[in-house]
C-alpha cells in the first residue's frame, strides 16, 4: 500500500468538506473493494475518507411503497432486515448472497454501486427495481447511473446517501457464480412492479449491467419461465475468459432468467 492520510469525518457534511479539500481523495465505506485495491498498489489516493461508520448513512426505512437504504448499510444488515425481507425478499436474498459472511459484515450498498464492478450483484437489483440513487448533489435514476465497467454517473466530490427501492410485485435474482471468485458470472434480476417489467443482467456483459428488452417484452405478454426460455441473446458483447465463452454466458442469461421468473412466482 502507498501512504495516505486517513480521515474519519463525524458527519456527511464533514465528509463533503474533506472531499472538497483533498488532492486526490477516495471514500472508504466497507473497504471490501477499496482495501484489496490499495493492497495491490492499484490506487494511490492522497486521502482516504472513511464514511463507513456514519450513522446518517446507515439505515433501512420502509415508507409508503418503497424502502430507503442508507449508502453505508452493510450487506448483512440488508439481508437480515425484516422490512426488506417483507417487502422485497429478492433484494434481501441478493444481499445475503454477496461474497461471504465476513464480506457482508463490512461491504456496503453505496460502495458496491459506486464501484460498479461488472460482476457485482447490487447493480442488477438497482436497475431491475427502478431504484432512485440519492447523492449529496442530486437524484439519479438507476437507468442513468451505471455507465459501463467500473463507471458511474457520480462526479468528483459526490457521495451516495441512500437508495430508494420501490416495492416490487414480483421479483427474483438468480446468480451463476464464477467458480473461482464467486462473484456473478451471470446474474439475472427479474421484476414486475409499478415500473412495468424489467430484466437486468450483471456479470455477463462487457459493459457491465444491462437490461434485456426482448425478455421484458416477452414477459409483459406472458409472465412465465417459458416466455424467456426462447429469448436467446447474441454472444456479441458478452464477456469471455477462462471461465466461459461469450456463447456460454449468453446461454446462461437465458437459463438464469428462466429460473428467476420461476422463483418470482
Amino acid at each position: 500500500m502507498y501512504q495516505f492520510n486517513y480521515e474519519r469525518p463525524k458527519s456527511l457534511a464533514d465528509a463533503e468538506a474533506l472531499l472538497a479539500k483533498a488532492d486526490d481523495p477516495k471514500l472508504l465505506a466497507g473497504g471490501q473493494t477499496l482495501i484489496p485495491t490499495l493492497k495491490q498498489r492499484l490506487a494511490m489516493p492522497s486521502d482516504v475518507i472513511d464514511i463507513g461508520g456514519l450513522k446518517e448513512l446507515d439505515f433501512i426505512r420502509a415508507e409508503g411503497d418503497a424502502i430507503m437504504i442508507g449508502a453505508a448499510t452493510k450487506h448483512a444488515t440488508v439481508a437480515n432486515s425484516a422490512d426488506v425481507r417483507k417487502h422485497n425478499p429478492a433484494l434481501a436474498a441478493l444481499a445475503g448472497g454477496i461474497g461471504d459472511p465476513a464480506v457482508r459484515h463490512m461491504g456496503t450498498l453505496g460502495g458496491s454501486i459506486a464501484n460498479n464492478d461488472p460482476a457485482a450483484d447490487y447493480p442488477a437489483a438497482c436497475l431491475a427495481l427502478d431504484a432512485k440513487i440519492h447523492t449529496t448533489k442530486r437524484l439519479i435514476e438507476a437507468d442513468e447511473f451505471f455507465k459501463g465497467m467500473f463507471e458511474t454517473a457520480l462526479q468528483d466530490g459526490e457521495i451516495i446517501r441512500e437508495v430508494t427501492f420501490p416495492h416490487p410485485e414480483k421479483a427474483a435474482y438468480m446468480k451463476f457464480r464464477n467458480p473461482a471468485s464467486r462473484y456473478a458470472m451471470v446474474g439475472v434480476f427479474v421484476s414486475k412492479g409499478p415500473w412495468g417489467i424489467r430484466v437486468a443482467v450483471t456479470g455477463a456483459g462487457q459493459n457491465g449491467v444491462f437490461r434485456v428488452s426482448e425478455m421484458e417484452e416477452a414477459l409483459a405478454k406472458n409472465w412465465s419461465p417459458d416466455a424467456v426460455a426462447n429469448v436467446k441473446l447474441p454472444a456479441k458483447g458478452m464477456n469471455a475468459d477462462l471461465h466461459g465463452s461469450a456463447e456460454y454466458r449468453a446461454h446462461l442469461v437465458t437459463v438464469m432468467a428462466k429460473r428467476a421468473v420461476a422463483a418470482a412466482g
Partner: protein
Amino acid sequence: MPVVAMTVNGKPASADVEARMLLVQFIREQLGLTGTHVGCDTSQCGACVVHVDGRAVKSCTMLATQAEGAEILTIEGLAPDGDLHPVQKAFREHHGLQCGFCTPGMIMTAVDMIRRKPDLDEETVREELEGNICRCTGYHNIVKAILAASQEMR
C-alpha cells in the same frame, strides 16, 4: 501518524500506526498475537478472520484505524481462562484441523456462524464457509466439528 486505540481480547491496546496499517498487521506485528494468519492477498481465504464488535471480519481487509474504538476478539482471546470454547473443543474432537494454518480463521468464522444461525445443517455450514479456504482437510471434519459444536451450544 494516527494513534489508534481499541480493545483486543478485553484489554486496551493502542499505538501510533501508519494510516495504511492493516488490522491484521496491528494484531500480529504490534500486539504479537500471531494466531491470526494471512493466507492470501485478495481477501478470499479467511485465515485472518477475527471478530470486530462481535462480528466476523477479515482483518486483512480492514485498516487498523477503521477499528478505532472497537472491541476485537482474536483466537487467543476465545478461551482466556484456558477452558476451551466449545468450537475449539469440537475442532479437536472431530479432527477439524491438520496443518492448523486455516484453523484460527475457521474457528472464529464458526463461532460467528453459530451465533447467527443456531440451527445449522450441513448445507448451511458449507455455504457459510464460502470465505474460508482449507487445503488440508477437504472440509469434511470441519463441517462435522461445526455441526457438533452448534448442537453442543444449543
